[in-house]
């Protein structure tokens, strides 16, 4: 049980750190405004969703 918990914490933290650093890494030049052409689902909060102009701009402002 203890092993499971420790193992899981390590795994989750690795993921969290990778996620955090990935989002801190700036996008390369010329790629700031890439849009995928995904229209599969209507999750309006998904960054890849093309209708999502507002969120996309915010993301770029932070970067």
């Amino acid at each position, binding site marked *: 049980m203890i092993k*499971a918990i420790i193992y*899981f914490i390590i795994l989750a933290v690795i993921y969290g750190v990778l996620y955090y650093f990935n989002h801190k890494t700036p996008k390369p030049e010329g790629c700031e405004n890439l849009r995928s052409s995904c229209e599969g689902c209507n999750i309006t909060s998904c960054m890849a969703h093309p209708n999502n102009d507002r969120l996309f701009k915010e993301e770029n402002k932070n970067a």
Partner: protein
Amino acid sequence: MKKTLSLVLFLGIISALSGLCIGYVNGITEPLIAANELASEKQNLELMYPGKEFITIDYTGDDENILGIYEVSGEAYIVKVQGYGYSSTPIVALIGFDTEGTISNLIILSNQETNGYGSRCFEEEFINTAYIGKAMDEDVDMVSGATLTSTAMQNMIAAARNAVSALY
């Protein structure tokens, strides 16, 4: 740095709680799952030899298609075996052998063979004449028009015979 640390800490606490929950639930359900699996296997064995005691025998060979072997208290062996016919989902069968190694019983647990073609190999009448009662060295019958399924059945029976012959 301090911020990164607090993020890590938050995620760590959440995942520790999650790990605790999963471990706890697993503790409750694991014995139940094991009991269920044994019970459903027993149910199938009961179909072949009603009211008998069954002992699980460890299979030591390296044939991947042999899924398990059971002994029916001194009078027969049952081999659980799988094989691939027309479909990519395997046919799974239980084959019972009496003390002489003659096929005394055979049931198909699951198959996805084509209805009307391959499935003819699994009709009760066909099983009774083609497979049951065949001795160790006798060939089993084929169904014309269902070559792949018949061959799979032949292979499964051969594999089961192989596994059982080591026990006599």
